[in-house]
């Protein structure tokens, strides 16, 4: 019985050499998951080979196609985990910073409060899954799943750096914006489906709020793409590497996009749909337990996406203004996440300092203030473009 050592089952070949390598550029999460499967698959294959030497299963486990398939599965988990931890950290950041704004401590238990947020989230999963009788079953369940689904989908699609992406569309921003803009319809239908007065009003308000804030956002995305020359997120960030970060020329655009992003992700001072003193919980009134926990998580995913879009378009994604220690070659993802959390920090300060805006005021600010500002921003960029500055 010939004994083959584990080493010849678990080689760590270069990822790119695999025939079925799905990307044309080096992809870090795929590399991690590839090696993980090499380790895992290799040991399983080696064990089976020990029991039954020379059997086809172990060779099957290690051949290129199978490794690629399992690597893709682990690839999904890795991407989701990183985004999930990023959102949890932004949730923890919100509770700590909001606490300190109000002269009190934020969460305390667990690693400086982080585990308490995880525990709170996990607690909601443990709660009983109640379904109120008078609720329209289908809409109640489906719209919830769709809202959470789209939010998590966009969060995972955001590339953290040149080598950390799921797929490198050359219309990156547009797709994110499209899916980002889907949520109001689901919220409207779920608010209506819950057969409860408060959620009906909450649903309608969510719809009118988000529709009226997508228009300025799309204009500003168009202006950034115009300035950078393409919609592809990688190109936009590289364009900002060549010239300055875009928030300097587009300072008007930066501020309006920041406010539109807070409105779009339903964060105070624009949270008229969700938790409001007179609407109690808005469209989330009838959801409880795990459903409500997931909605809260989806809200924070949408907050994370909004901040990520701000960093991509205006704060130069994963670039550092000057990079003495070449950090950027090793950890561009961390710089991207830190910038996203900084924008989120500004959203938290906004939440702590300002009161909630009235629905009709929101609409008139949306159409009468942010729309013209985004057009002005477009004009500025056009002049800069024609003037040949950028």
């Amino acid at each position, binding site marked *: 019985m010939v004994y083959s050592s584990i080493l010849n089952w678990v080689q760590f070949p270069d990822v790119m050499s695999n025939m079925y390598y799905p990307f044309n550029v080096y992809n870090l999460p795929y590399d991690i998951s590839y090696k993980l499967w090499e380790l895992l698959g290799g040991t399983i294959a080696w064990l089976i080979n020990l029991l039954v030497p020379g059997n086809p299963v172990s060779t099957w486990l290690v051949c290129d196609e199978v490794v690629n398939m399992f690597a893709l599965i682990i690839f999904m988990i890795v991407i989701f985990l990183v985004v999930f931890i990023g959102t949890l950290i932004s949730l923890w950041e919100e509770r700590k910073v909001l606490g300190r704004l109000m002269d009190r401590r934020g969460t305390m238990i667990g690693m400086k409060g982080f585990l308490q947020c995880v525990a709170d989230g996990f607690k909601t999963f443990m709660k009983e899954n109640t379904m109120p009788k008078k609720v329209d079953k289908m809409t109640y369940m489906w719209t919830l799943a769709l809202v959470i689904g789209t939010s998590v989908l966009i969060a995972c699609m955001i590339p953290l750096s040149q080598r950390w992406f799921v797929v490198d569309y050359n219309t990156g921003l547009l797709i994110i914006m499209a899916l980002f803009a889907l949520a109001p319809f689901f919220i409207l239908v779920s608010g209506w489906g819950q057969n409860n007065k408060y959620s009906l009003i909450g649903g309608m308000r969510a719809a009118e709020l988000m529709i009226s804030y997508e228009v300025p956002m799309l204009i500003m995305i168009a202006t950034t793409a115009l300035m950078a020359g393409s919609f592809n997120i990688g190109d936009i960030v590289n364009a900002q590497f060549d010239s300055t970060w875009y928030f300097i020329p587009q300072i008007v655009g930066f501020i309006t996009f920041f406010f539109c992003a807070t409105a779009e992700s339903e964060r105070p001072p624009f949270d008229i749909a969700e938790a409001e003193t007179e609407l109690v919980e808005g469209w989330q009134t009838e959801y409880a337990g795990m459903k409500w926990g997931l909605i809260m998580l989806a809200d924070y995913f949408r907050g994370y996406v909004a901040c990520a879009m701000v960093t991509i378009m205006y704060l130069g994604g994963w670039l550092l203004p000057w990079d003495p220690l070449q950090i950027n070659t090793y950890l561009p993802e961390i710089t991207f996440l830190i910038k996203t959390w900084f924008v989120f920090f500004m959203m938290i*300060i906004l939440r*702590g*300092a*300002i009161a909630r805006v009235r629905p009709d005021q929101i609409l008139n600010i949306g159409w009468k203030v942010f729309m013209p500002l985004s057009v002005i921003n477009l004009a500025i960029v056009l002049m800069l473009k024609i003037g040949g500055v950028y």
Partner: protein
Amino acid sequence: MVMEFLKKYPYDKNIPRRTLWIMKPIVVVSKLFVKAVVHRDVAILYPYEDLWMPDNYRGRPGLRFDKCISCGICVRMCPTSCIELVEVLDDSGNTVKRPQVNIGRCAFCGYCAEYCPVNAMTVTPEKELAEYTREDLIYGPRRLACDKINENMEVHLEETLMSDIKNGNSERRVNSFMIDRPILDSSKCISCRKCEKVCPVKAIKMIEHGVNAKGRPILWPEVNKDTCVCCHNCVDDCPKSALHMDEVL
């Protein structure tokens, strides 16, 4: 008398030019954010840290076991009637009546401490009174007597008489329980000795005043002015209500 706030923020200060002005609140909030991060914020983390309460804080009532003369004034003065006199063994072994407070009903108003003539009932700053059952909330005399009662937990009843103020001596403060005394309406008294038995401080002695028709001595109660604490026990228990309290004003 200038009204600075209305001068600084007149009604129409936010003229349209500043409609979207929100910088000042953000500056104020971030200033506090920096202060709360650099120095300690104001919050007190309750289970680990506790707010200091001065001694005159009206937490649960406390009893100094030996000073109590079981006169029952606290029972009568309690607004929610949550105090009872209970038989209990004192240090030297004989049974004695001491107040027992039902903290579940107590309104923490401090009347028992205020109207106690000998300041046996006091106010303690103890405020962590949670229990598992309602019966545990009933504090017996021994449990009431927590050890660290000091004198500034006492509540003094110091009143000035209106007659004092009229004749100019308004500095003098007096405890109303030390001046009002019961007065006997001798026609109603049937010399049944009940008031003598009921008086907690033994201030009442029965004095003989001749013999009645059936040859039994006529006994009228006579109150010892300085030991009486005006606890209304004799007034309430007299079957013929021969005694009434004469309030010195």
